[in-house]
């Protein structure tokens, strides 16, 4: 800001406090958590999640279908 605040009144502090509390509540609603994000600690493997992804086919997108080829019904 070009003009700095020189005097903080009680009301101003309360106002800023309300703003801050609201921001915290927004953060809570978004439910942001420190999850394993892509690119982080690629050496650490969450085995349970890995197992689930593997079974769902999310890791391979059916690229390994040669190994599990089934008779497709027409």
């Amino acid at each position, binding site marked *: 800001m070009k*003009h700095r605040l020189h*005097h903080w*009144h009680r009301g101003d502090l309360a106002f800023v406090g309300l703003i801050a509390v609201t921001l915290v509540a927004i953060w*809570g*609603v978004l439910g942001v958590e420190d999850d394993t994000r892509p690119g982080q600690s690629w050496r650490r493997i969450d085995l349970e999640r890995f197992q689930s992804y593997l079974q769902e086919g999310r890791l391979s997108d059916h690229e*390994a279908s*040669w190994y599990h080829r089934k008779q497709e019904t027409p």
Partner: protein
Amino acid sequence: MGLSRRHRIILAILILGAFAQIAQAVLIREGLVVFYGNEVSLGAFYGSWLLWIAIGSLLVFSRPAAPLAAAAQGWLRWLLLALPPVLLLQVLLLRLVRLVLDVSASEFVPLGQLFLSLFLVTIPGSLVLGLAFPLACRALDDATAPNRTVRNVAWLYGADALGALLGGVLFTFVLLRWFGLAGTLGVVMLLLAVAAGLLRGQGAGSRWPHWLPGIIGVLILLPPVGQQLGWQLDRLRFRILHPQMQLLDSLDTRYGHVELARLGNQTSVLQDGRISESFPLPREVQQQAAYLMAQADGARRLLVFGGFAGGLVTELLRYPVQRIDLVQQDRAAFRRILPYLPEADRQALRDPRLRVHFLDGRRFVNEQSPERPYDLVLVLDATPASAYSNRFFTLEFYRRVQQRMAPGGVLCTRVSSASHYLGRTVGGFTGSVYHTLKRVFPEIAILPGDRHLYCAAALPERVSESPEVLKQRYLAIPLDPRPFAADSFHTLLQADEIGYARERLEEVPAELNSDERPVTYYLNMILWGRLTASGLTDALERLRRLGPWPYLLPLLLGVLLWLLRSALEGFERPRLQRQSASLALALLGLIAMAVQLVVLFSYQAHVGFMFQRVALLNGLFMTGLALGAWAGQGVARRGRPVPALAGVLSLVVLALTALPALLVLLGGARGDWQEGGYLLLSALLGLLTGSGFPLAVAAAERERHGVVRSSGIAQAADNLGGAVGGVLTGTLLVPLLGMRWSCWLLAGYGVLALLPLAFARWMPERIGWLARRGHRAFPWSGLGWALLWAVLLVWGWRLFTPDGTARRVHFDDQRLAAVSGSATFEARERPFPHYLGSGGEAGKATVSLSTLAAAPGVRGYAGPLNLLIALDDNGVLRGVRYLDSDETPAYIAGIQQWLERLVGRDLSQRPLARQGIDALSGATVSSRAALAAIDASARAAGRVAFGRDWAPEGGGRERGSPWTEARLLATLALLLLFFPAYLSGSERARLGLQVATLVLLGLWLNSLLTEVDLVNLSLGRWPSPRDNPQRWLLLGFALAGGVLFGQVWCGNLCPFGALQELVSRLGNRLGLRRYPERRLETAMRFLKYLLLAAMLILVWTTGDGRWARFDPMQFLFSGRWPAWAGILAGVVLLASLFHYRFWCRYFCPLGAFLALFNKLALLQRLAPKRRFEHCDLGVRDEYDIDCIRCNRCLTGIDTRRRRRRENRRRKTGLN
């Protein structure tokens, strides 16, 4: 010395220019060796080199009065002395980079780490060079008459460029050849000692700082010292790259760095740090020769590219061939390897059937006579891991080889792959070679392995994958003894393995590799990234799918928004001209660097030995820059630099448009004409782009006087642009877009640079109807425009990117069992993904599937709902789970419980939609969409899994048309009421409207416009107007109302806003309302724009709509509140007691978006005239962005000016 001070400074800069060119070439060559010859290091190097030069310039020009600038000549002298040890340090750092990064010899350096290491290593040298130029300009200015700034800068620019040419020629033809790397460092020390000596003033203290580096330089030049030092440096690098191997010999060829090393009883040849051949490998060579000669049944004339050391050629000479033409890159390297080869290989060189040709493979093929065609051509020792070697895998190369082959000739080539599993990335990489080869040779036999061997022919049945056929062919060859057991063909060629490889290769999208667009080289980079777990790989994959337009967007948006801002806020013409000249200079710098890289890539593709010629090419380019600067200086002196700069830009655009055709012509030229053409082209491009530099300086100097600032700005802008151009072109543009589109994209940049120049020249400084809307509500106008730029840019990129959001249509057994009750599952993909279940507590056969897979066309408010459903073979619904959707949270809160009530329903006779099921309260449309999706999916699943017709359409109770529903009629009535309430300006009418809005849209219909609607619209997810006309009415009204009257939706028709308004009025009545200090309150109002920008960018980049689900109004009227939502709503309503419409004013992202319409408000003159003096919210202007059209200022009752004065007095009294 009799030279004047001025001449000494210019001479010192000439020497500095030579040093810069030599240092560049040395570091580029080091980088190529460390990073296995991949030219992506070129772009990264140039980008960081120029960036740090720009930062160095900025450091000086930002503080022209600092001591550095005050004693410019003295500081310049010390900088020159510092450069040689800095260069030595940089060379050592590059040689140690793998050790520092802990990357072993067999691995590629991860891309991100490659960029980072180059970025950091270039800092010292280029920072010093960046400091040097403006200091030299200042020193020269001190030594000459005043008002000669432009001339002085041009002299120095010219000297620098001429020095670069001399350095390039010296390095290419003299230093490397006679002195090697260590000797080169010695020469450089000597030259810079001389340059520093030139700058030493009279009586300036001891001479030893200049003599000492000179003496050291001379010592290093002495052969014993220089050679030994060079050898130790080579050994150091080798020991770090390959700690297990013993280095036997090394040399620099024109193509790269070649080393010979031993491990046990095996010797290897390394090219640019990477093992290219190993010997002896007798078994492998015998097998290879047998396979190749069996494929090219009866081959008599062979052409082999490289690989003599591996022993294959010696083995092939045992076969009844008439002639083998062996093409080896470099004679000197060949001779150095010979003593280490087995005796049999050395003997083979005496065989009269063998002819060895020492020249580039592409050139050999171009110049070879077609009258002597070949039966078999082998390209087995290249790999498309660099632009240089990628040229042996391109369409142009295959076509040229085909012209040199007999009609039944066979071409065999090899590319990295994987033995048994071809994933997306590996398959794409090897597949691009396969498809490129197939474009020329329709018949291809595949031998799978860690490297796929492709044998290709034009004639059908010429090549074979049958082991029996190849065995018979092999046995028919008169060969005694047979080193290879013929039955081994059956082991070598496994039908299912070959079948799998072929199927995968045919499946991958065909990306053709060409000289003009070296896509395989780029795919190699992506593969490299995958193997090194580089975080950049996903971004590179996404970029691969885009065309050229996303690269144009940032600049296009930046220029357009800049001009819009100038028009809205008004501008001072001289200042705008200076800024547009600086932008033009930055873009010229970008174009210059980018086009030079295009030329380098083209040179590498067609000529091949850029490793040797890079210094010369760059030196010629710099010479062109210097000559251009001279020409530009002459024009600038005539006093009209801006039109001249526009002229230069126009010429650059024309040249870029024609450049692709010129490069194609050069590619087809022969021998020396070709190379000469490239050298001339480099010079001409430098000439054209260099002429802009003094013109931009002249335009900048007009407004700000001061040589340091002018030259600093100019060099910083030029180098920053060059840095961006280097990185962009080297790493992305040429490999992804190809040379043609890269040149045209650069031409687009040139056109964009013209726009601000034209605007600054011809637009009036103030345009009435625009300037009226230019009122700035916030002091951070720049930040606001930057946010707008960022949001529009991300949205634009999102539009070009295919929607990669993966919706779940595949599931694990655990989840399927929980929904269906079955124990085992069989996955099927056609016609849509589904699972057949059996066993378990279900006791019957079941089918489970995602509704998105089977019925993607069924839509709710904002697109399809994704549910996991399971049915048994009687058509009974066994289970339903909600997965995801794009609906507003309020409409799907509680949907899971509602869905569970459907379990057990029989769909075999009637669909759910006709079973009289009550909709989910407050979410009629979404729940109807869920029922429709289940019905459609059941219909499809029943047919596919069990051959039954479930959920037949027709029969049962049909619901009424949405056009006659009460919700639509009530909404229409409310919107019609808006007009008299708003236009009359009546406080009571407006309050009545607010209450009606709250009750109808909020409490009864729970039908609000929220950020989720904004996000869905931006992603092209529209509600269906036929099924949901009420939603269309609301959306349309909000947008149309905004265009016509401004932000009327927020002030009059938003239910949540209405609730806050009523709470705020209550608070005012109770005397609770407070008014924070004006500037603080203004700052906080900006917060909602930040939230809007952050929300949109996060949603668009992550594809996760969750980032838009935090507004309390998305939950408030549904009655079902997630954990924190209740707290948030409570805080907001409580705060509204004290501050008018707390959420609307400081947090609402939708309100921030609709506020932009306040700049339009085309018919606001029809609305009651506002009284800004009564506004308690800081609105002071007709087009103020923050006016929500509440019209409280008309009566001033709620704004209570008297009460605000009392509050202020109270506060002042307290203090």
